[in-house]
């Protein structure tokens, strides 16, 4: 596995998984980042415009903090995180030790449905990643 460089082909495949599984479902924005806060790829529904670079830096920090808290209570990890807001919510899920999938979505999507699709998307991305 090579985390430093991702080929055009890999990114395109990841993008199409994210579009199929999450954007089509109605998710506003999906970002795949690494734990250092770099963006691997970002997809949105072309209506929502987020400052994804700042978001990635904060999300990586947030996830790392929660990970450290997990260790303090004797957990290996908290593999998912969910922040609920009035209008929009954020769902974080670990793809593997290095990668994180973040979905931003509105009220019209149920959390359960989103989670099912996130699990599916992660499975597909993992398969793709392990092949390279």
């Amino acid at each position, binding site marked *: 596995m090579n985390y430093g460089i991702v080929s*055009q082909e890999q990114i395109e495949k990841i993008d199409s998984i994210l579009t199929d599984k999450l954007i089509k479902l109605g998710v506003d924005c999906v970002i795949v980042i690494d*734990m250092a806060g*770099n963006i691997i790829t970002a997809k949105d529904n072309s209506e929502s415009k987020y400052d994804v670079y700042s978001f990635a*830096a904060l999300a990586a920090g947030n996830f790392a903090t929660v990970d450290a808290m997990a260790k303090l209570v004797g957990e290996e990890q908290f593999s998912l995180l969910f922040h609920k807001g009035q209008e929009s919510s954020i769902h974080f899920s670990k793809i593997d030790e290095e990668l994180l999938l973040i979905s931003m979505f509105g009220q019209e999507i149920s959390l359960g449905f989103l989670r099912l699709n996130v699990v599916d998307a992660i499975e597909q991305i993992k398969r793709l990643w392990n092949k390279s």
Partner: protein
Amino acid sequence: MSFINLKEKVVQVKIVYYGPGRCGKTTNLEYINRTFRNQIVSEMVSLKTHGDRTLFFDFLPFNMGKIKGYDIKIQLYTVPGQVKYNATRKLVLRGVDGIVFVADAMAKQREKNIRSLNQLHENLLSYKESIFKIPLVMQYNKIDLKEHGIPILPTEVLQKDLNSRLQVPYFEASAVTGYNVATTLKKIIASTIIAIQKKLF
């Protein structure tokens, strides 16, 4: 670890400003944020306490233009300097490509600089990085205080304390007035990009 996107031709580079508490890491970023507004697309993110001390980190994305057709996006971070925040300092160092060590030139801070640098060394080891190999620039900050009659360590002393074994580029600076802030930034960007190129090609 820098991240390179071959599809969109973007290289993301992570540079961390490290140093003891109140040495001027955030002030460096604030000066850069004010001075290079046209190269900065978004707002600076600062996670701080009510007393204006950095709690987690500051983050400033900085566009450097293109090298060989690749868009270089520099991500500047600071760490919280206070002793008790080492766990968060370590988190910010994850995946770092280049480091500016900001030392406080005030005479009374001499020991704190050395302690902070030693801890940087240990923290990097926990990520299997070496302080002797990673691109690093020293900045001896607050030299403007000399004019106000505050005792300042001579550069030779700082060099002996901090840079005698590392032998990295160093600058006297004043983050408040902006003196050598851009020079420091340019130097660390150059060293980091060269190191990334060496790794890749």
